[in-house]
């Protein structure tokens, strides 16, 4: 479409939609710098909630647990998810393929309460103590499917003949993968890892079902605080998380854009 400027109607609908998406977040950030304890009344600028946040040991412990779970589960999920993506796009027919693709796509839309309950019952049935590792296993299972979607869309869009050429020139399948395929799909793999990482960072429901004593994650902590009422420390914490994720996403997209430009 060769349109060089916005039409009146399109511009209006975009402005309304983006205000709806961003106003709540901006207000949340604004009120994290509020001196008043009343979260909705402006009482002057202050950074005291950030100070008290960092002195709150409960939040810091929970943040550390969350980070560990997110890094380990995202890494496992990236490996498993990439394998699943290759299976779906390169391996061809095999027995159980329908079941396999069904299991890959279902967790994407499955309500979290069901996945969480089901995984908890599994861990109880096999007698696994609930805690850090059970959350990690649960998150790996959920997020690997998102990695598969991201990586397989890259795998279907690139030229298969490059792989075939490598095989013709005497590469084994394994070295063809590491020398040809992997460098090409690397941006998608990184994007998949980041997606898995943020999904794990964000999850409340599945973590609540699969965690045990002593392994409270940050969203669980935030949730129990929010149920007690609005809390300016939560605003401060949310602001930091939003900032962290926004910077991460913007940097990642700039890097992958540059990588794509270099390939062309």
């Amino acid at each position, binding site marked *: 479409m060769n349109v060089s400027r*916005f*039409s009146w109607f399109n511009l209006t609908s975009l402005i309304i939609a983006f205000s709806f*998406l961003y106003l709540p977040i901006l207000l*949340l950030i604004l009120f994290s710098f509020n001196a008043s304890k009343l979260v909705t009344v402006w009482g002057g600028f202050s950074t005291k909630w950030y100070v008290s946040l960092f002195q709150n040991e409960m939040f810091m412990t929970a943040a550390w647990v969350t980070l560990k779970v997110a890094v380990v589960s995202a890494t496992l999920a990236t490996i498993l998810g990439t394998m699943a993506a290759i299976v779906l796009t390169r391996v061809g027919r095999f027995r159980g393929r329908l079941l396999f693709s069904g299991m890959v796509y279902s967790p994407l839309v499955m309500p979290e309460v069901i996945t969480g309950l089901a995984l908890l019952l599994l861990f109880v049935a096999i007698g696994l103590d609930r805690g850090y590792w059970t959350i990690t296993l649960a998150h790996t299972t959920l997020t690997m499917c998102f990695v598969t979607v991201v990586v397989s*869309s890259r795998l279907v869009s690139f030229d298969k003949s490059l792989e075939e050429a490598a095989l013709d020139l005497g590469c084994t399948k394994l070295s063809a993968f590491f020398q040809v395929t992997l460098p090409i799909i690397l941006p998608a793999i990184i994007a998949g890892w980041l997606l898995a990482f943020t999904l794990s960072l964000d999850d409340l429901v599945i973590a609540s079902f699969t965690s045990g004593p002593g392994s409270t994650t940050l969203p669980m902590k935030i949730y129990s605080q929010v149920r007690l009422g609005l809390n300016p420390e939560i605003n401060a914490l949310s602001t930091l*998380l*939003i900032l962290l994720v926004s910077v991460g996403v913007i940097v990642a997209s700039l890097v992958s854009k540059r990588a794509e430009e270099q390939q062309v």
Partner: protein
Amino acid sequence: MQRQFDWGRFLLIAIPFLWLLIFFLLPFAIVVKISLSDTANALPPYVPTLNLSEGWSGITSFISQLDLESFAWLLDDKIYFLSYLNSLKIAFISTLLTLLIGYPMAYGLAKAPQRWRTVLLMLVILPFWTSFLIRVYAWIGILKPEGLLNMGLMSLGLIDQPLAIINTPTAVYIGIVYSYLPFLVLPLYATLEKLDQTLIEAALDLGCSPIQAFWKVTFPLSLPGVVAGCFLVFIPAMGEFVIPDLLGGSDTIMIGKTLWSEFFGNRDWPVASAVAVVLLLSLVVPIVIFQRMQERQREAEA
């Protein structure tokens, strides 16, 4: 030439396959099993537990103890039926509302000048990456009686008394539309962007007004994106827990919330499992349709 067994291929398939079998499919079998068990004052709080050490008789006595008591319980107490109906209603209405806001947005994105498109798309995706919980939390401060929306409207003189929005279904609709908007906009944008512009030009040349051209050409062609987007909103909204819990208050009952309180509040695992089975059964059809569409689209791209 005899074909050698391809170990690499076998492992490549077997490892993710086994992982999903153990951590995705097996858990559902256990949910079904426990939904057929009885509640007990024990740890874990249900009987019977399968005792393989007794051999075959252990298995038969285990099976004979299973019953549909939990499901009968679901039919007995009206709260389960009501929360199921209410979830269906809330998911349906919020999907429609999301479409109403999401369609013009996706359309505006697809028609935006090329150099703006990447940035705008990024702005749609960004909230999806920031915490779901935080975004729902942000609305509490806006919607509550002494919140920002009511203060704003009152200072403008539009209302005299604060509107009661929080702890009503309206707040849940706002929360769901807000949280799931990107899920609908992205697949819809992808469809609209690929749309062949010459078809619309042809319609215009043949005497259609722009509005007619939209309803006769653009909208029908964008239907696959509309359907995919609506599924991505409807299915998770059906089982939503966080939004009705934080924004809907105690009067808004939804099935995800009922399951949660059955499990964490009443510690009734068999009934919680039965609720999960019913919810799952009602979602099987939309999920299968959604998968078929994903698979077909993947094949079309390949």
